[in-house]
């Protein structure tokens, strides 16, 4: 214990320490950490707080959900995350719109590979219906509580989720001989 204590503290220290250097108080909005991407506010709630964050934003005047999508970070490209948000394989990206005053906000939530689930926001925005189905279909993220979690683009007996990075492109069995005559 005496050995582990300082070691653990030293390990835990750097991250908060660097935060303190960069920004004394991590900015929060609707209970989520905020970063900025090309002048656009980006909120990073964790998975448990995701629904509450969206709900708070809706109460804040963001009346329309213009877009729900997901990104598969399997190949681990560089991405901006605030300290304290652990990167996961999937990231669901929600764009909300406030009509008056005109304003957009982006919400990015990390979804782990081994449990790709997220609560639905269909109960808040009826327009998220098709978008969540699309994310489920093409990226394989399940939205709990969605009324109709079925495929929307692909045929209903399709296997796999095509927009995942480990889904092969153009994987169609090629037949090198002509088909035998049918009659």
């Amino acid at each position: 214990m005496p050995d582990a204590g300082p070691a653990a503290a030293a390990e835990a220290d750097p991250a908060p320490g660097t935060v303190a250097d960069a920004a004394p108080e991590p900015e929060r909005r609707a209970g989520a950490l905020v970063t900025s991407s090309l002048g656009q506010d980006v909120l990073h709630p964790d998975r448990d707080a995701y629904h509450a964050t969206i709900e708070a934003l809706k109460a804040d005047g963001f009346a329309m959900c213009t877009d729900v999508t997901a990104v598969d970070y399997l190949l681990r490209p560089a991405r901006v995350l605030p300290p304290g948000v652990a990167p996961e394989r999937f990231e669901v990206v929600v764009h909300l719109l406030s009509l008056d005053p005109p304003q957009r906000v982006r919400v990015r939530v990390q979804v782990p590979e081994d449990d790709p689930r997220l609560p639905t926001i269909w109960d808040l925005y009826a327009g998220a219906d098709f978008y969540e189905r699309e994310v489920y279909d093409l990226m394989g993220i399940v939205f709990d509580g969605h009324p109709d979690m079925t495929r929307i683009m692909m045929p209903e007996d399709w296997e796999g989720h095509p927009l995942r990075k480990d889904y092969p492109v153009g994987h169609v069995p090629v037949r090198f001989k002509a088909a035998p005559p049918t009659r």
Partner: protein
Amino acid sequence: MTSSSADTSEHGQELQPRSRTAEALLEVERGAVLRLPEGAALDAGDVSVDDLDDETMIINLGPQHPSTHGVLRVMLELKGETVLRTKPVIGYLHTGMEKTAEDLMYAQGSTNVTRMDYLSPFFNECAYSMAVEALLGIEVPERAQWIRMLMMELNRMSSHILFLATNGLDMGATSMMIYGWRERELLLAFFERVTGLRMNHNYIRPGGVAADLPDGWRDDVRDILEVIPGRLDEYDDLFTNQTVWRQRSEGVGVITPEQAVALSLTGPNLRSTGVPYDVRADFPYLKYDEVDFDVITGTVGDVFDRYAIRISEVRESMKIIEQVLDRMPKGDYRSQDSKVTPPPRARIDESMEALIHHFKLFTEGFAVPPGEVYTAVESPRGETGCYLVSDGSSRPYRMHWRGPSFANLQALPVMMRGGFVADGIAVISSLDPVLGDVDR
């Protein structure tokens, strides 16, 4: 990879009999979009929602029906002639363009996106190019921005005129279809003179536009602006002020502003309810903050409003084009940032470096700094958005397309409920969906 599908409610995408449909899904299909207190969500007054399965009939409208604008399939539950439940079934035109984009270099990407909403290709190209330019942090020359505006507003005219044509056809005014195609031809001929192609132009590219406007473009545009207003007045005589047309379209397929906002409707479909949301006015891009135009809104949100808004928006587009004609500056039509723009053709003949530069740009492409951005433009159908993620290479890591038609289709159950099947045709038509944009 499919481990997650086992515990979802995965079943057929089709409209199921009531006995096999969950209560929440029934609500969606009946068009109850607002999460209201118990019981208030469904105004059971106009349609009895408690019919038994054997009293109703489920039919397919499409995907091969002339009035469904491509391959839209709408499943309806009918009682007699009255629509009780509606479910759009889509995906018949899905070609995985978002996945394709990940394999194309940034310069090739506009060839890909221009094919999505094939009736308004310039808007797709512009949304995409603006996203790439935002990540690159490059400034587009003034002239290129005005050219983009010119082409997009002409494109809005051609798209809306085609809407008037197909809407007329769907409502039984066959002659309108001929008129609409005739007027659209003027615009497509101009596009061909400028870009070489009538559709899928690949004209707006990251960094600017592909070529400068041809000699005599001003006269061509003036010719268009002289012809179209007279034709629009003819349409007004034929339809807007005509009793049969109004009785056919007024009060049909009504959607309230609250429902429209909740369902993520954008464009003329949203504005028909009175919500003045227009990306051009609310988030000005290019030079839209320097031109004067009105955002047209309706009051009722019915089929007639959606028709009337589009005919007025053609006039607004002409107003913008007049201003573009007056203010078109001289200068470059594409960025002179040699990182993005290939050297001029003449330089390649005399300079080895230019040849190498050209070769590298077209084989390796240009690298885009890591980051993510969402850009939106106001297309004839609503907010066309592009969410682009770059990993620093010369190909997008992820490109997501926010197609306005995709979201607009969600309004079908609301608009169709309680109406007749024949009204359903008018409703589908008035939404102006482009299935290339829905399925991508």
